[in-house]
């Protein structure tokens, strides 16, 4: 297998998967088998790609040439390969869990939901692999369109306006801010291809660089930067498997990956020209983290609470990426923090949302107050829930801790101690809205009232949660090798 | 000071034709009555004939314009008759009102 074939497989498998799932909605067993099997296949191809990149191989595929100087092209780089491996790996667990939820909850039109989950995974993979700004834009739009049916899935009076807000925010910001920024970049540099060290490096004055940065960051609304975050709380009306896809595996991580790619390959690490806008945006993002965590505290519905909690985590990704634009030697640390944070966010958010999905499927409970004592009845699920909460908060030795540590290091190292303070404040507030919840679920007295499904969770519902929770521990052993693996993206290629 | 050459008969005729054209255009676009609209159209066309003639264009062009004018008149008249038959009115506000009403009505299944 060559890297190119593996890339085709990772990008194409979910599309085939979606088609097959739509064509073979019955029997459910076969449908779920296809769904899980293809997810597993995509994940194994992604793992192969990581090893290929580690061995210095490259891959570049061109799907179309819609404009004379611009290709719809995909390329593997360490960042894209790593993110794809993490997301598709979690995608396998999610595929198992989604099959379980579809059975347990008798969700309407499960095959449509599974198909669009697969398409959204293809979208986020395309975002991660995109070789130029145009491909990133196409993949971004495709992902927004693929995720839209997931938000609108229930089709009721609550889901419809939410889906409309979701699509309107994502598409309007991408057309209104992201596209003009792309056009501007093209006008300045005459190319849209990503370059290590930054396309714009040495080509722009400070004013242009600052304005462009604001356009890019606001345009990539998937990262949930306020005031472009409205889609995220709106999406919480979707069914749980859709929420996992949107908030943990596809849309929110795609925003983080998009910002990271733009900062790394368009601006370049340590691009001092854009420092003012970067600082202003760090203030916005830092305050946004605090406010999002506070709003999460006020929400009583678990889906809304987790949506705002994920938003705070995603903003940490953006903060890390923006810190890399500060002058000094801590740019790479910011990028590394952002990359770790995406991994941590995906693992912990997937665990939390799958745990909440399992809980809703078994007990029918979605209110935070009703969670007390459930850990005694569903120990595996809530063990996973607690681990993921700890990771979100940033407690060692879970994934979130390393990301937070690097973030604070990068902030302090760049001289922005207040940014480190904001990140720490957000972590404390995250503890406030997740810590007591996990603790009361595990420690309080078991509820005595009737469950929706008294026979308990099937293995399909419980195993993915605990496995995803275990994944949050993975960074404990792999941080160093990950840093070495990702190093090429912030080290400019040796001059020829 | 305006020279005598500039104020020739041709110039005055052309200016008069253009004025006629504009008056006709206003009537054709803004009048509230279908017959007046068609009338305005004819005035507008005659204005252009006058202006063209004053500018000394060839006969072929004038014949073309007059033929066009004739077709517009025929089509306009036919349209007014059909409007009267269908709506029982040729006042455009009434016609618009009738259309707006039928837009709002739900079709019967």
């Amino acid at each position, binding site marked *: 297998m060559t890297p190119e074939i593996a890339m085709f497989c990772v990008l194409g498998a979910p599309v085939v998967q979606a088609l097959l799932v739509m064509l073979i909605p019955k029997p459910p067993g076969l449908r779920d088998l296809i769904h899980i099997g293809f997810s597993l296949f995509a994940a194994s191809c992604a793992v192969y790609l990581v090893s290929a990149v580690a061995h210095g191989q490259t891959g570049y595929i061109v799907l179309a040439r819609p404009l004379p100087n611009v290709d719809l092209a995909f390329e593997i780089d360490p960042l894209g390969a790593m993110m794809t491996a993490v997301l598709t790996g979690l995608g396998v667990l999610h595929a198992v869990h989604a099959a379980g939820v579809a059975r347990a909850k008798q969700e309407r039109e499960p095959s449509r939901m599974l198909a669009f989950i697969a398409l959204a995974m293809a979208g986020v993979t395309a975002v991660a692999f995109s070789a130029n700004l145009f491909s990133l834009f196409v993949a971004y739009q495709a992902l927004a369109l693929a995720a839209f049916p997931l938000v609108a899935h229930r089709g009721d009076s609550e889901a419809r306006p939410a889906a409309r807000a979701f699509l309107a925010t994502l598409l309007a910001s991408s057309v209104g801010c992201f596209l*003009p920024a792309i056009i501007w970049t093209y006008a300045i540099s005459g190319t849209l291809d990503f370059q290590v060290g930054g396309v714009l490096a040495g080509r722009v004055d400070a004013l242009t660089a600052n304005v462009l940065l604001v356009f890019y960051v606001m345009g990539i609304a998937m990262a949930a930067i306020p005031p472009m975050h409205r889609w995220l709380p709106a999406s919480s009306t979707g069914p749980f498997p859709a929420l996992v896809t949107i908030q943990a595996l596809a849309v929110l991580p795609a925003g983080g990956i998009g910002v990271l790619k733009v900062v790394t390959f368009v601006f370049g690490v340590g691009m001092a020209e854009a420092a003012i806008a970067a600082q202003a945006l760090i203030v916005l993002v830092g305050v946004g983290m605090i406010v999002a965590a506070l709003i999460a505290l006020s929400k009583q519905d678990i889906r809304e609470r987790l949506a705002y909690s994920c938003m705070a985590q995603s903003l940490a990704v953006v903060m890390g990426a923006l810190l890399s634009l500060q002058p000094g030697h801590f740019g790479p640390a910011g990028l590394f923090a952002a990359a770790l944070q995406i991994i941590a966010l995906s693992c912990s958010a997937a665990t939390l949302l799958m745990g909440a999905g399992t809980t809703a499927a078994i007990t029918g409970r979605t209110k935070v107050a009703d969670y007390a004592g459930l850990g005694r009845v569903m120990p595996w699920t809530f063990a996973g829930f607690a681990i993921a909460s700890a990771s979100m908060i940033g407690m060692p030795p879970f994934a979130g801790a390393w990301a937070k540590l690097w973030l604070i290091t990068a902030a302090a190292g760049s001289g922005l101690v207040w940014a480190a303070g904001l990140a720490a404040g957000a972590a404390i507030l995250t503890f406030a809205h997740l810590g007591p919840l996990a603790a009361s679920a595990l420690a309080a007295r078991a509820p005595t009232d009737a469950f929706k499904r008294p026979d308990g969770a099937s293995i399909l519902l419980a195993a993915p949660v605990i496995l995803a929770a275990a994944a949050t521990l993975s960074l404990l052993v792999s941080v160093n090798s990950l840093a070495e693996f990702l190093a090429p993206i912030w080290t400019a290629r040796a001059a020829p | 000071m305006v020279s005598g050459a500039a104020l020739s008969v041709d110039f005055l005729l052309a200016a008069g034709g253009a004025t006629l054209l504009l008056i006709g255009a206003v009537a054709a676009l803004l009048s509230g009555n279908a017959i007046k609209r068609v009338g305005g159209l004819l005035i507008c066309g005659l204005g252009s004939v006058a202006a063209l003639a004053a500018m000394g264009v060839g006969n072929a062009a004038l014949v073309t314009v007059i033929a066009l004018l004739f077709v517009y008149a025929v089509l306009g008249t036919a349209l007014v008759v059909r409007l009267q038959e269908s709506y029982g009115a040729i006042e455009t506000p009434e016609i618009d009102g009738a259309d707006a009403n039928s837009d709002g009505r739900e079709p019967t299944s």
Partner: protein
Amino acid sequence: MTPAYLDLARAHAPLLMIVAPLLGAALTLVTGAARVSWVVACVAAGIGAYAAIDFASVVLGGAGQAIAGVGVALFVDGVGSFAAALLASVAAVTILAVGASLKDSGAAVAPLALALVLCIASGWIGALVARDLIAIVAAVETAWLASVGLVMLNAQRGRGALNGALRMLSYGGVGAAFMLLGAGMIARATGSFAIDALPLAHIQAHNLAAAGAALIVLGLAVKGAVAPMHAWAAAAVGRLPTTYVLGIGVLSVLGALSALVRFSAYAIAAPEIGAAISATLAVLGAASVIVGSVQAVGARNLLRLTAYAGASQAGCVLLSIALGSPAGFAAALMQLVAFSAAAMALYGGAAAGRVQSLEMLDGYGQRAPLASAAITLGALSLMGAPLTIGFLGRWRLVEAGVGAGWWWAAALVVVASLAGVFYGGRLIERMYFRRANAAYAGERGVWRIALAPALIVAIATVTIGVAPGFLLRAAAAASLKLTGLAS
């Protein structure tokens, strides 16, 4: 024997693309029966389209054959040959699609309606290859009066069409008078009615010539439904939920816009008046983008929404030609293709289920999946979604605009796309995520083979968007031969 005739036909292709539809129109009137006349019309339109495409491929293919002056009356240029091929193809697809609505206005009038569609095509193609300004106006009016007649015929089904016809008659008549006056003024200033004389003549009376050219631009803009002179379009197509709407909403508008592009190519090339015409086009284009977009966002009728979106797209065409550069004209030609594809997909998809108001779209995805797919692809193209031809056209405009330092034009394109997100997104949401209103739930889409063209065109919006090489080359070749092949 046969090759000799074919060679003769090829040598006179510009004439053939005008005459074939006209002959076809006469024959359809003679045949009488609806189905037979449809077949005759299809053949005539097919021959015209073949001739036009073949001719365009010869002219734009790089051979550079000098057939600029064809006889005394015709004068072929890059824009004319490109747009004539596009127009003839659109006419052929329209005739094919009209087969689905033959019985809608009564079988008796079907031959007449088909003849009128062919006359529209023939008239606009004539305007694209005519040399003399008066001949151009006469061709334009032939097409326009045929359009008015077509709308009037559809009043058999609903009287609302008559109101649209009245608007078309009054707006079009005023536009015609403007064009005639403009032609006279240009002739007075340059001493000739010949369109190719405009860039070459040493114009003495700059203001007179500029005013004349501006009047012709205005007259054509009225017919091309450029906002704010597009009130007729919404009224005429808004109550025409049959495939005949393609003849008005796409064929006629496309013809007018193409003629506008062609005339502007000559006017802008004239050094004395170029700047004034460019400014006129820029102002009109900007107004059309803004007014069209705002109206499309507020529209509650799918057909009218498409007309308004078309006005916004027409504004982009005008902005492109206002740039005056070959890149701008190439962008304009791409946008014409994008406009026709998107409008055909939307109108065709709407006609399939006789959809008028947006409420009728609720649950359309279930009732008429193919028609919904056509509407979806058309809407995506109007949004300027990447990998559709709509994106391509706008990207070319932005490229050309930014190259010339017209940042505001690029900003307007973004505004048009942003509005597209709102109205296009609304269409998609209604079709796929709402349950059908009880009143329409039983109505299923029309399943006739003749509706296939809309779907094919919709698929073409994507295929061309992904692999646009040949189209881009053709548009680039056309824009390099703006004012005649001889130059």
